[in-house]
């Protein structure tokens, strides 16, 4: 019985992992027909990616937007999480629900709303619109991660700091936040990844002047399948795996904060 279970789960994991591996191997093709396994090998699609402004431009924009989103979402989300967990005020729970609610709103609906908003203020097709949109998507995630870290940390430390004469700001900066550093790091990393991978908001509010890497990939998939996509895909996967490993290593010492799975 146990053997059957292992066999079943083994197949399931092959199903989960194999497509990613197949694309990675296919990216090493010399032919433009995306053969698997490749008959002749080369790195020409990687060269194509790094050598073409059509790809590097969007990639740089994605990195820039994701960095700003990571900072904005982490600051907004962390402050909000501290307010929710440590504050005592009426309607706290309803407010908490509201602040997390973007997580259950379908991304298409969010993107549609943002499209209406930015068309009204003439910001469509601008990096600013993308940054604001991605920040709304990433902030609830930050709140959830930081909230978990705060609940696991000891409020008595802050009480001690306050009773020793530190004001609210000093307590926040020197006691509260350092105590949840692993959660903050995880939150910043995940906010970055959410923005970096985000495609639906980019489709709705982005345009020729603000094409992110996922948007460029989207257009390429839809209109002309270009083997460069396989190279981009494996690069993105490597980045994600790298970040995952770093996050796991960073999180290890304290064992504090939320899991990688949100």
């Amino acid at each position: 019985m146990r053997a059957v279970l292992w066999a079943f789960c083994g197949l399931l994991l092959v199903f989960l992992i194999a497509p990613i591996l197949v694309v990675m191997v296919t990216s090493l093709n010399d032919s433009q027909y995306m053969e698997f396994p490749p008959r002749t090998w080369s790195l020409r699609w990687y060269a194509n990616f790094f050598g073409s402004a059509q790809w590097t431009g969007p990639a740089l924009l994605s990195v820039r937007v994701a960095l700003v989103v990571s900072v904005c979402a982490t600051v907004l989300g962390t402050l909000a999480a501290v307010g929710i967990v440590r504050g005592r005020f009426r309607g706290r729970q309803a407010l908490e629900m509201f602040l997390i609610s973007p997580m259950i709103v379908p991304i298409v609906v969010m993107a549609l709303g943002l499209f209406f908003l930015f068309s009204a203020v003439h910001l469509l097709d601008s990096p600013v619109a993308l940054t604001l949109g991605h920040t709304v998507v990433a902030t609830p995630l930050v709140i959830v991660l930081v909230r978990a870290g705060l609940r696991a940390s000891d409020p008595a430390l802050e009480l001690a700091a306050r009773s020793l004469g530190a004001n609210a700001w000093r307590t926040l900066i020197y006691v509260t936040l350092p105590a949840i550093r692993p959660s903050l790091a995880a939150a910043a990393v995940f906010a970055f990844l959410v923005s970096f991978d985000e495609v639906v908001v980019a489709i709705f509010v982005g345009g020729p002047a603000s094409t992110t890497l996922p948007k460029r990939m989207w257009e390429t998939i839809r209109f002309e399948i270009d083997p460069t996509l396989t190279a981009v895909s494996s690069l993105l996967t490597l980045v994600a795996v790298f970040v995952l490993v770093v996050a796991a290593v960073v999180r290890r010492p304290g064992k504090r904060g939320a899991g990688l799975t949100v």
Partner: protein
Amino acid sequence: MAAIPGRRFPRPWRSGEGLLVLPALLFYLAVYLYPLSRIAAWSLFERGFTLKFYRELLDEPMYFRALGNTLEISFLSTALCLLLGYPLAYLMATTSARARSALMVLVLIPFWTSILVRTFAWMVILGNNGMVNRTLMALGLTGAPVKLLFNMLGVQIGMVHVLLPFMVFPLFAVMSGIDPNILRVARSLGAAPRRAFRHVFLPLSLPGIAAGCVLVFLLAVGFYVTPALLGGPGQITLATMIEMQINTFLNWGFAASLGIVLLLVVGGIFAAFSTLLGIGRLTGEA
């Protein structure tokens, strides 16, 4: 120090900390709540109040089909994720710590890989010139390529691939909290393994099943990328229809009414299950 009822610590100076929520709140009002209200406004006004965008939704069979497709695709992928994910979560919860972390990593790698990348991977594999079709033809099992993309099969393969981790994580969280001694008691009282599983383990894992199904269903209902790329004309969903209305037909009012319907579907499911299960389980509080 006298504790104030309902508070863990006396903290007269603490009252200010709630104010830290304000920046996020203001930001949400401008970039989250206001856009949502714009959707409602676009769906209800066109030179004055009108319900025509909603009436169109009921009258035009194609739009009604989009709603039906959305629900069909979501139900099917939720069921498939449960069927496939339950054994995996069970194995993770009952195996050694070392094997568990290995399994966890193998689930997390695809989880953190971009959805676009994974969907594209399936297009490469399942296409007419893809690996699957060429293998089938080389084996002589089929003369012409089998259609694996741009139909329900393609959508389900892609959706299950993306959504499976969202089923496995809540299932695993609940299952790993089940005390193995309870199962041992059942066994020692004479229950066969199968019976112990069905009457003890399965009922105890129900909260995980519920949480996983709600999560996967909610995500599936609003899913855009995978149905858009792997589906055909028969798999047009509310989400893909909204995008078409904006970028192809330029019918903003109608896109807005579709958005509101999608929001209501999601909100309804969420409200129903959060009252049934308790809100915490769905917002990641567990």
